[in-house]
């Protein structure tokens, strides 16, 4: 892989729901191996942006490429956007792993089943090979001993770690995290953040939407601050959080004082 | 297959009489079922252990056996224990006893579904017990019990047809008799089906309309 090709390139991206435009022309690039934290007040469009990158939402305008390959839409010869066939979407998207706020583990499968399922169904591995691989992934997130448990029998933090293992089992080049700790009790966020920190140390390209300011400041190599559907600031944690600070950042930090921002103020 | 509608016009008075019987049987049994069902639900909640378990058995029996068997037992068995009624009162009583069991379950669920916190909140702001029932419990319950009550009302419309088996002169009975006299079952029964379909659809729509009207009370999560 040519290292000058960005992991993700977004250009001129807009997203509207009916009449309301929630993202107004986003241009961003994320390099390989970079951990980017998308922060911003609620309603700023960060989750929508992440869902567009996962192609769970189709952008109204603009283009996204993953490691140089067009995702979902490409520019046609006449300068108009054309929708790519679903098979191509799936191929490009297979480089992306996604972790959801609500975990979204399949309730009728065990932790092991959740991780092994796509290896069998999508990758065509044998059940036993898939389960061996799934076991390794569960061990990696510290849940080897919970393989036989159903999601309903796991704590929120454990469920989210299984969800991370499920995404990792498919060898993604990029991991997207959509508020991975927002539906967890405060005492359970640590175990999930630790797994993510480990993943960052291993060199995974990560894009994280989160209110965990402490995590963003310590693990993030880059911070993107979204405000009202636009990129307000973009830079290293020291550039964004260091003084002198943008007044909107100050306001934002005040609101999230309890999320590890205290150390920054 | 011929489809001859003239027999309908020839027998219009009988059909209208049957229509009227079906309608009032339905209206009275629904009203009676709601009142009796409410009383059963209240008695099961506040009436002590014995009453609660006796009524629990009654509800289980009514819900666990076919209405047809219940109505046969009442109609054919009644005279043996000194209850000699003509068809129509028997049918009406049967419907009310049957419907009340289902309505009581709706009210019971309704009582249980009003959050305790709402009642505590009412007490905290100084409402008396009766005020709490009238201003908090009943309006909140109304919204909860409306959709299932409409369902049961619809079930009762359809059960009135079963009363034809004990020769209550309601619409199904009248129509079947005309069908056999003129050997025009298909015509008669098709119209009959359309009539019930119409009545059930109208009732369902009215229920949804009322629900939409009431929904401004809907719980804020």
């Amino acid at each position: 892989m040519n290292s000058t090709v960005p992991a993700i390139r977004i250009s001129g991206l807009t997203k509207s729901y009916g009449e309301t435009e929630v993202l107004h022309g986003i241009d961003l690039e994320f390099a390989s191996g970079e951990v980017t934290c998308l922060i911003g007040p609620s309603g700023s469009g960060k989750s929508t942006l992440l869902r567009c990158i996962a192609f769970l939402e189709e952008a109204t305008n603009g283009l996204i490429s993953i490691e140089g390959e067009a995702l979902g839409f490409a520019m046609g010869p006449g300068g108009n956007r054309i929708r790519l066939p679903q098979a191509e979407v799936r191929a490009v998207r297979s480089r992306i792993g996604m972790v959801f706020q609500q975990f979204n583990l399949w309730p009728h499968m065990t932790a092991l089943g959740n991780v092994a399922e796509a290896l069998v169904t999508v990758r065509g591995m044998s059940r036993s090979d898939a389960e061996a691989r799934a076991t390794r992934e569960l061990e990696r997130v510290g849940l080897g001993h919970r393989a036989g448990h159903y999601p309903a029998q796991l704590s929120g933090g454990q469920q989210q770690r299984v969800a991370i293992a499920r995404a990792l089992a498919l060898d993604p080049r990029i991991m997207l995290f959509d508020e991975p700790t927002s539906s967890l009790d405060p005492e359970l966020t640590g175990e999930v953040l630790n797994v993510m920190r480990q993943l960052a140390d291993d060199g995974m390209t990560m894009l994280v939407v989160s209110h965990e300011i402490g995590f963003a400041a310590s693990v993030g190599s880059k911070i993107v601050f979204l405000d009202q559907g636009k990129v307000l600031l973009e830079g290293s944690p020291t550039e964004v959080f260091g003084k002198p600070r943008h007044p909107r950042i100050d306001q934002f930090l005040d609101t999230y004082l309890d999320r590890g921002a205290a150390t920054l103020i | 297959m011929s489809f001859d509608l003239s027999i309908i016009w020839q027998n219009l008075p009988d059909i209208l009489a049957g229509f009227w019987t079906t309608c009032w049987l339905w209206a009275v049994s629904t009203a009676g079922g709601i009142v009796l069902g409410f009383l059963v639900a209240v008695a099961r909640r506040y009436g002590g252990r014995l009453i609660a378990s006796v009524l629990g058995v009654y509800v289980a029996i009514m819900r666990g056996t076919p209405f047809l068997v219940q109505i046969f037992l009442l109609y054919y068995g009644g005279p043996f224990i000194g209850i000699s009624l003509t068809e129509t009162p028997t049918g009406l009583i049967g419907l009310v006893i049957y419907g009340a069991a289902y309505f009581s379950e709706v009210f019971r669920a309704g009582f249980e579904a009003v959050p305790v916190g709402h009642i505590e909140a009412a007490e905290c702001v100084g409402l008396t017990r009766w005020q709490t029932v009238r201003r908090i419990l009943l309006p909140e319950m109304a919204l909860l019990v409306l959709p299932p009550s409409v369902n049961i009302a619809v079930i009762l419309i359809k059960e009135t047809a079963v009363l034809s088996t004990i020769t209550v002169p309601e619409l199904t009975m009248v129509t079947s008799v005309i069908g056999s006299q003129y050997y025009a079952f298909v015509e008669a029964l098709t119209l009959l089906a359309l009539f019930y379909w119409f009545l059930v659809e109208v009732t369902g729509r009215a229920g949804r309309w009322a629900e939409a009207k009431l929904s401004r009370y809907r719980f804020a999560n």
Partner: protein
Amino acid sequence: MSWKLFMLLVKASGLTLVISGVSILIGLALGFVICAGLLSGTRGLNRAAELFVSFFRGVPLLVQLLLIYHLMPALGINVSSTTAAIVGLSLCTAAYQAENLRAGFGAVPRGLLEAADMCGFSHFQTFRRIRAPIALRLTLPAIINEAVLLLKASSLVSVVGIVELTRMAQDLASSTYRPIPIFASAGLLYFIICAIVAGIGALYERRQKWARR
């Protein structure tokens, strides 16, 4: 009431079980087809399925049975009254099962399907491995409930002359002049059958570990 009479009722309830069982299975299969119509994006299919459900839920089963019983010969289809009864019961219960299934499919959280999407599942794979199994398990209580309702409703086929439990009770009651014990016994048999079916459903549901919270 003699033991002999009671055993006649028990035997007759065998036919009730057969007729109901066959109708429940056909109704469930047909319910799937109707449900596909209800969920279909094609307007014509959608309308047809809605109309089917509305009609068979809006007309008393007794009237449906009488209509089918007389309509089939009129259309030149000669079948036994048992077949006509099974057709009637199946059509009616299919309408209810279709609604149950629609609710089940609607209740599968969107996020679970998005997760499958992100794991690279095709539409069909998502349906087969994720959506259908979850919807089925969510729908199970309603499906069992409808099966119990159909068991009770099958008493109405006595009207077209099938000697199942209710008709047998009627015949015995009129020949012995002892309606109370006979109809009470018939009621008891229905009650037991319904309780068993509901019990099996509850047992199966309790075995589903994943539903436990």
